[in-house]
């Protein structure tokens, strides 16, 4: 039953939002059917968000396993990424088949690039999750603020609308957000006629990810002993 709910929860979440916004906003957006547009962007966004947020709890959830000296905190972080990816991939596959069944065009325009971008995004989510985990380990009260900060990310990352609908004057600021780049890239790779806004670049996401990984793994290296032995984690 618990295993079923693991799949059902994100599935229902995605389906509900997709259909809800499709009803509110009409049938099409930039030449594609709206449910398809939403699904293509929201599924990876939820994967990245869940991965990053759940990694903040990895230490607490797995504390009892650190009694085995072979198990390091890093293992629990990597395990979390694998688990979330498997769940998201399964849910996405089910939804894609379901949508295709009802006559939506679910073909992927450039599949290899799409997979590459998804993987970069996953690496970014891992880096972000590690970073947040290190941060909230030092300052546990930040957890609630970080969780709340992910809510506006929904809107400024272009999950529900194309980035071109966002205010143009704010674009230079909005483009600092790697999620916006990732979602635009992913949609451009899946939907054949979708053009991302100017300034979206794979290079930015990759550099951001590398800096983030460097910082978070460095912090992990410095605090790895403390992560296991703390009493307030």
């Amino acid at each position: 039953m618990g295993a079923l709910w693991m799949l059902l929860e994100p599935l229902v979440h995605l389906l509900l939002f997709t259909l809800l916004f499709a009803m509110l906003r009409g049938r099409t957006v930039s030449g594609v059917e709206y449910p398809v547009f939403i699904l293509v962007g929201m599924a990876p966004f939820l994967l990245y968000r869940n991965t990053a947020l759940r990694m903040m709890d990895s230490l607490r959830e797995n504390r009892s396993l650190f009694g085995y000296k072979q198990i390091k905190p890093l293992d629990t972080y990597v395990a979390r990424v694998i688990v979330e990816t498997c769940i998201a991939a399964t849910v996405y596959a089910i939804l894609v088949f379901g949508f295709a069944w009802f006559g939506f065009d679910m073909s992927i325009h450039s599949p290899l690039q799409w997979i590459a971008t998804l993987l970069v995004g996953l690496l970014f989510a891992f880096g972000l999750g590690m970073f947040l985990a290190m941060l909230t380990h030092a300052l546990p009260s930040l957890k609630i603020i970080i969780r709340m900060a992910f809510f506006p990310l929904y809107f400024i990352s272009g999950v529900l609308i194309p980035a071109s609908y966002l205010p143009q004057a704010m674009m230079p600021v909005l483009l600092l957000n790697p999620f916006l780049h990732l979602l635009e890239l992913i949609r451009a790779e899946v939907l054949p006629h979708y053009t991302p806004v100017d300034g979206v670049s794979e290079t930015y996401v990759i550099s951001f990810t590398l800096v983030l990984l460097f910082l978070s793994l460095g912090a992990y290296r410095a605090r790895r002993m403390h992560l296991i032995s703390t009493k307030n984690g």
Partner: protein
Amino acid sequence: MFELRNVTKSYLTPNGRRYVFRNLSLAIPPGKNIGLIGRNGAGKSTLMRLLGGADVPDSGIIATDRSISWPVGLTGGFQGSMTGRDNIKFVCRIYGATGDAMREKIRYVQDFAEIGDWIDEPIKTYSSGMRSRVAFGLSMAFDFDYYLIDEVMSVGDAQFKRKCAEVFQDKLQKSNVVLVSHSMPEIEKLCDVVLLVRNGTIQVYDDVAEGIKAYNS
């Protein structure tokens, strides 16, 4: 044998840093069963975790040339949402027992802990007695030079204690034990050396009776 050189261990709590040990140095001779005694909160379990490598000192070195089990305690070591069987499998995989060896260890733990078909229920539904039976049985399923046993035996019923004693008789032919206990008869029966943990220091008593006397005084 164990050797501790200038070991300092502290924990960061919300109210600041609390030192458990400062600049502790001592050597424990090889081939002895070690009893750790002391008041609650004196640092027995911390010392045991340090010896087992499950925790690391802030500074200093803990050296040993023996294989040491994980600390077998009342609470830790299990993922509560997974079943008993999955937890056992998990530990088997960590320690490299796969295939037939894993099946054999699962059977051993199931028999030893007498949990029957509870083995397929999540660990968090177990009573503390069942949990400690599984924890103890699981550690006995593997061969180590030292077993770290943290008060597990004191919670069981009489029958379980008898069973533990039997398995111990067998295991202690080749292995040794580091035992945390508040039951002095148990310490007297099983241990050759007593370490009295008190006020951040550790006193080594080669004579068990003398150590217990110091603890009680």
